């Protein structure tokens, strides 16, 4: 039973989500290849070859894969698919964009966002923003799967010894062009992989006040996140958003500040190991999932917290 994992990367570094997806794939079988598709991505291939449990790194390096647009990437994957029973990718915006296109081209019903593997054809996935867990069995001959990475421990990034094999790339589809990425600059650890996250909601009142959370985050070596209300109000950029529509994270410690705890927000953080809620409203639903709740005005509590750390 051969398995292909699609690596996520920016042509320089392997995204850590890929390690969790490799770990999920290893629960299905051990004959595992990793596809590194991009442009000038040899450093990613080298890093990928160290990942424990991978047999072969398949490297598709071409200027037609600049920006890793779905159209060219899907054509490449379809050309490789005959060899594999399972194709997995992280349920990040990268994987969510790409894999359904491949699935439809192969006439396969994709299984989105799996949180557990029951057997090689049966998987558990959250539905209704995590209000329910569905166990689904696939009758397709191939299984195409996106993986909820917070539910699988990362495979080890070093100690592996995979071979690196260049593969050929199909022509440009001509359908789409990559223009660019406006990345939000941050010196801090990445939200998706941080051990500690400090998140602010509408209660922060404005973007400037997020400096208070950043001061706390700096002391803890934490990333800063936000609710949708805070992003919509323009306090912070979109990639700070945690929840059903934003990032799904599960740090060791999640500190929710001025966030009410709507189900759509909880969908993105309720698997965190320890949850702290700071809110002035005793009734806020966030307290129902918090391990430690503090009813307080955040404008008093946050400076105090920063000093106490």
């Amino acid at each position, binding site marked *: 039973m051969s398995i292909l994992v699609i690596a996520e990367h920016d042509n320089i570094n392997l995204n850590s989500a890929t390690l969790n997806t490799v770990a999920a794939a290893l629960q299905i079988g051990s004959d595992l290849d990793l596809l590194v598709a991009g442009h000038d991505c040899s450093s990613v291939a080298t890093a990928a070859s160290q990942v424990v449990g991978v047999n072969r790194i398949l490297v598709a390096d071409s200027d037609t894969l600049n920006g890793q647009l779905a159209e060219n990437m899907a054509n490449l994957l379809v050309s490789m698919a005959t060899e594999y029973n399972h194709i997995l990718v992280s349920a990040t915006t990268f994987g969510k964009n790409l894999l359904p296109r491949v699935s439809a081209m192969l006439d396969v019903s994709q299984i989105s966002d799996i949180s557990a593997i029951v057997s090689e054809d049966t998987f558990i996935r959250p*539905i209704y923003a995590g209000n*329910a867990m569905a166990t689904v069995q696939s009758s397709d001959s191939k299984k195409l799967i996106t993986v909820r990475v917070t539910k699988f421990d990362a495979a080890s990034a070093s100690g592996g010894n995979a071979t690196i094999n260049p593969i050929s790339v199909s022509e440009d589809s001509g359908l*789409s062009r990559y223009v660019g*990425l406006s990345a939000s600059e941050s010196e801090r650890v990445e939200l998706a992989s941080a051990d500690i996250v400090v998140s602010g909601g509408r209660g922060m009142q404005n973007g400037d006040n997020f400096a208070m959370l950043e001061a706390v985050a700096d002391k803890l070596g934490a990333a800063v996140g936000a609710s949708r209300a805070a992003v919509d109000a323009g306090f912070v950029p*979109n990639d700070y958003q945690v929840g*059903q529509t934003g990032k799904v994270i599960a740090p060791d410690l999640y500190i929710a500040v001025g966030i009410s705890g709507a189900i759509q927000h909880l969908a993105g953080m309720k698997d965190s190991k320890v949850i702290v809620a700071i809110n002035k409203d005793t009734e806020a639903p966030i307290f129902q999932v918090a391990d430690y709740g503090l009813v307080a005005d955040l404008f008093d509590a946050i400076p105090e917290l920063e000093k106490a750390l």
Partner: protein
Amino acid sequence: MIEYHFRDWLRGDNVKSVTENLSMKVLVGIKRVLDPQVKARVKADQSGIELTHAKMTMNPFCENAVEEAILLKEAGVVEEIVVVSIGVAKAEETLRNALALGADRAILVLTEQILEPLAVAKVLKHIVEKEVPNLVLVGKQAIDDDCNQTGQMLAALLGWPQATFASNIELQDTDATITREVDGGLETINVNLPAVISADLRLNEPRYASLPNVMKAKRKPLDKITLDTLGLNTANRLTTLAVNEPPARAAGIMVATVEELVDKLKNEAKVI
């Protein structure tokens, strides 16, 4: 090659050439779902979610897709907005709502079956081949199945480009420039038209329908077709074996002061 069937039940007389772009036609896929404000309850027999008597509504991301189509029409770029839903008879309410907001015409593909995104994409492809829109807008994700697949699958089946998770759309004559909300920030891509674009929540702010428009919408054209008559293979490939409640988190405690909180995090939870 796409095969076109201009049948009058779909008012095929409205079909425009894909290159006549000053009066574009937009097709919007709409799903009727459990209202996001309502808590989903798992059925006792674990077969699914309790939906009888539950408040249903238009999927929020579809609201963004409809709103964008209306904004494009108001901007004079789009001439006709066709909304399509595949579902039970009651999905007519959801389509009427879209007509009240500003869509011109609706198509309801009737089925009692709950289709997987691949099957929905096949049905939408069938409608697209008859309607020949310049652009298809869908929501990025249905908030019931949380699949996030249909738009990408439809684009694949049509051989069209896709632009998912759009927070900004600029249409030109033969192409579109789209800003996408991705994990790393905001990505910009350019795609040929026709294309499938999936809407993210920040694409726009959906309006509410005014009462006079709700009344007017009752007279707007709404065609009903039964899924069986389309002759498509929409059999599901996934069997739901069980639907369960997620494991509950153990109850936490309230702390009285910041000092106590820091102490607990250091000495009890040992996370800092």
